[in-house]
């Protein structure tokens, strides 16, 4: 175990926190507020350990040194590497996790088995951070399983509701299928190359002297292995046509878990896919082409199916598929044409989407918690009962719909401006589909906003209680306000965020050279 300890600290924080929290809840007290606060503190500590790492990574990229690594180094080793894209996703996961934990301070107050909920949340993020940081396929597989196992349980957390267990089970089956394919791919790769370490990229992208171990080797087994890894990780990231688990899982999980799933879990699996396939020598141009083609499917199908949903969370889940498509379009164009600016725009959308979708799911969760609203029709008249939640919900939905000046619009603006630079047929088709999809998506976001603000409290016609103001717990309002603030800030002042994700694009391109 050598290397830069900072790299391991976030993981250590989260894993240690999970164990400690479980013991705390068993031995001392299981009061929900305590647990929520402690979990949030653990996430905050994790976030704090990432901050110096960001500086180190930036410095290493600038001076052309090795990126910070930690673990059993060497060709046969298993270790973590802090690359810029991974740090972006890890920070997003930690930040969103912190807010979700605080929100849970009220949200799961009425649930049983809270003593497992919070440790699982921590383990989920620990797995996620491991997946994005992993520098070899073995660690990647391990952390991927850790993340997935935590998610399976969390999706089915409210096991007494009729569909949660079914959704969890479906996710388990699909997820395991994905994992098995990944494992198979890894074994194929290992058979041919005899090692699992992803290549190190050192030096600035311009003067690249790659100490790469295997991506010169592109034998038949590596190719098959690559294909397996691509498919397996696509399952995890909910890319059409292997997305079928996503609406069920996101639609049935508790709101907090859906927020994490849609906000960052899917995107980090996507990042892992990029890292692995490019690292193993999949040509960047071809990967970009594939991504653009699949993005067309993802966004069209996601938006099309979102139009016909009657359940609020399933609608948001399909919107996640569509947004994954948008991200893929940005990244795909970037890889196909070697434009780091387009990848940067894709990453900015990941940030914006995490804030917007997290906010949307948490708001939906609050409506469910206070008013028992699950279907879209149940959301009628929410504005009168939960004005603050509804306001935040509207911000999230309008942001997702790409209405200026919110984050979603700015992200789409960047993708469009950067996507138009290279001119070829596929990109033009992609941009056209992107614009049309933006318009189609209005067809479900706006009616939802309208439903929220409508006057009639109840459709069912029974003597519905007059719309009364329901006081919202501060545990819920605080995270909602923070996220809504972020959606607005990212929209009107995207500069710092854009700079923050700038390195990720350049790094991915240098890996995929």
């Amino acid at each position, binding site marked *: 175990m050598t290397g830069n300890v900072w790299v391991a600290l976030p993981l250590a924080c989260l894993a240690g926190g999970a164990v400690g929290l479980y013991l705390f809840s068993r031995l001392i007290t299981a009061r929900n507020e305590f647990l929520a606060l402690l979990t949030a503190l653990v996430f905050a500590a994790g976030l704090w350990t990432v901050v110096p790492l960001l500086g180190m990574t930036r410095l290493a990229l600038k001076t052309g040194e090795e990126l910070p690594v930690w673990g059993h180094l060497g060709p046969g080793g298993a270790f973590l590497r802090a690359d810029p894209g991974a740090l972006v996703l890890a920070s997003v996961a930690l930040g969103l996790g912190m807010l979700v934990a605080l929100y849970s301070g009220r949200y799961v107050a009425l649930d049983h088995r809270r003593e497992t909920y919070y440790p699982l949340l921590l383990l989920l993020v620990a797995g996620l951070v491991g997946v994005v940081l992993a520098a070899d396929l073995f660690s990647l597989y391990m952390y991927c399983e850790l993340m997935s196992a935590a998610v399976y349980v969390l999706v089915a957390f409210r096991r007494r509701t009729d569909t949660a267990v079914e959704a969890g089970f479906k996710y388990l089956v699909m997820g395991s299928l994905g994992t098995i394919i990944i494992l198979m791919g890894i074994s194929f790769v290992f058979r041919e190359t005899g090692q699992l370490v992803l290549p190190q990229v050192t030096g600035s992208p311009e003067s690249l002297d790659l100490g790469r171990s295997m991506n010169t080797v592109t034998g038949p087994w590596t190719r098959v292995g690559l294909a397996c890894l691509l498919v397996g990780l696509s399952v995890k990231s909910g890319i059409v046509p292997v997305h079928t688990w996503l609406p069920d899982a996101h639609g049935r999980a508790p709101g907090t878990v859906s927020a994490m799933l849609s906000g960052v879990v899917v995107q980090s699996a996507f990042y892992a896919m990029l890292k692995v396939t490019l690292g193993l020598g999949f040509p960047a141009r071809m990967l970009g082409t594939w991504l653009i083609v699949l993005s067309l499917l993802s966004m069209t199908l996601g938006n099309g199916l979102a139009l016909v949903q009657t359940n609020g969370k399933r609608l948001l889940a399909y919107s996640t598929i569509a947004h994954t498509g948008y991200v893929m379009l940005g990244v795909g164009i970037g890889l196909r044409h070697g434009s780091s600016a387009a990848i940067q725009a894709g990453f900015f959308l990941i940030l914006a989407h995490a804030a917007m979708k997290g906010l949307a799911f948490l708001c939906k969760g609050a409506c469910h918690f206070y008013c028992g609203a699950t279907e879209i029709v149940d959301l009628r008249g929410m504005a009168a009962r939960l004005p603050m939640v509804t306001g935040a919900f509207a911000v999230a939905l*309008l942001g997702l719909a790409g*209405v*200026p*000046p919110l984050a979603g*619009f700015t992200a789409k*603006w*960047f993708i*469009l*401006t950067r996507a*138009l*630079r290279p001119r070829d047929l596929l990109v033009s088709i992609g941009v056209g589909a992107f*614009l049309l999809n*933006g*318009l189609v998506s*209005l*067809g479900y976001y*706006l*009616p939802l906003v*309208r439903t929220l*603000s*409508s006057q009639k409290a109840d459709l069912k016609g029974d003597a519905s209680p007059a719309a009364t103001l329901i006081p919202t717990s501060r545990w819920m309002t605080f995270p909602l306000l923070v996220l809504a603030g972020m959606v607005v800030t990212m929209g*009107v*002042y*995207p*500069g710092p965020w*854009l*700079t923050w994700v*700038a390195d990720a694009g350049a790094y991915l391109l240098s890996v995929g050279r």
Partner: protein
Amino acid sequence: MELDTLWMVSILGAPLLAAVLLSLLRGRVVRAAGWIAGVAAALSLAGVLALLPSLQRGDVPTLSFEWIPAASIRLALHVDWLTLPFLLTEAAVTLVAVVYAWGYHHTDQRTPFFYALLMLFAVGMSGTTLADDMFLFYIFWELMLVASCALIAVWGEGERAGAVALKYFIFTHLGSLMVLVGLIVFYDATGSASFSLLREGVTLAPAIVGIVITLFIVGFSVKMAIFPLHLWLPDAHAVAPMPVTIMLAAAMLSMGTYGILRFPLSLFSRVQMAPFGVPMMVMGIVSEIYGALMALAEQDIKRVIAYSSVSQMGYILFGLGTLSYDGVAGATLHVVFHAIVKALLFMSVGLVIRATGRRRIAELGGLRGAMPVAALCTGVGALAIAGTPPFCIFNSEWMIFSGGFHTGQFGLAALTLFGSLLTVAYALWFVGRIFFGSRPAGLTVNRSPWTMVAPTVLLAALSLIGGLLPGPIFEWVSNGLSLILGGAW
């Protein structure tokens, strides 16, 4: 900070501050909400007027900050002669609409939000004209849409308010997306979002010039409600509460004109624009005649005036399409005068609706004796919109028709001229059916509050003054023309 900059900030800042204040104080300012909005709107108008002297000195007041350096986007505002007529119209209409709302709007707990959204709507419009950066332009452009859509959805009259708001949003957003693509092509060509840089000259590939011009013209035509892109307008105008309708019809429609003047006409050369002149004229004529016919056929008095907007926007597009000095100047002038007259007509209709509680033209009649002021004002408005001298629209229509004859397209020009006969028909028929004839049984008339009558009378007076003394406005408009089509006329 210079005084000019301060005034320019106040144009946007006063309504914005009012909106923030109103939504923060909520229940505590239910009674004062209208006054707060009124003061903000007045400050905004004062800001516009205060910038006039420096414009006349030849300055271009600007304000510019770094915003998103990574994408070379700046927070830049400016006022030039092209902006001024629109900015003035927008600020004045907002003030008048707010004053009118004092009497029209029933005060309740949500009133502060109503005025806050009204203010945001105003910010969106003035921001659109002030913006010197495409990104900022588009943000304000959509803010205008979001705010007005929320006003229609929440305060709309009738069962279908939500559906109408949705239709309005999706329709106009489609137009916005076309504009967005055009903007992004320019952004891509220059690498900067600044208008000032754009004006210094961009060379686009000849293949895409036509596409971009088409996108801009069609996109802005949606906002102008040109046939067949007008479908959102009659519903939105009929459902919206009257102050919002006034702002929609008198100020927001003109934003489409501003867009056409600011983008295709400013950024492309006369040679590049020439192929689009006749299609624009034809679209204008079709819209003019269609709008007038629909106004004749319509039963709801608010929708009559709404269709009259479709018709009037047709004149403006025709004027722009002539690409001649007279036509473009006339079209810009028409924006200002149409705003006055359209606001006047909607206000008069609002007086009738508020006093009688009826909207169907068949159920009205003989109100001349009971509502003399409203009758006079509607009469002035109808004569004005029919282009009768000495009211203001006569001047702008004169210019537009003269522009039409300059192009050599005598057939089209004659067609517009005779098409305006239909305007006379619906305008006079409208006044006749409401104020003359016999009074239907059971039609009672309530008193109108002075805050509704006073702005109506003021606008009636303005439409006469504008007709008799068009000099200053004409001068401002013609100053702006030097910025269009290379400035050589």
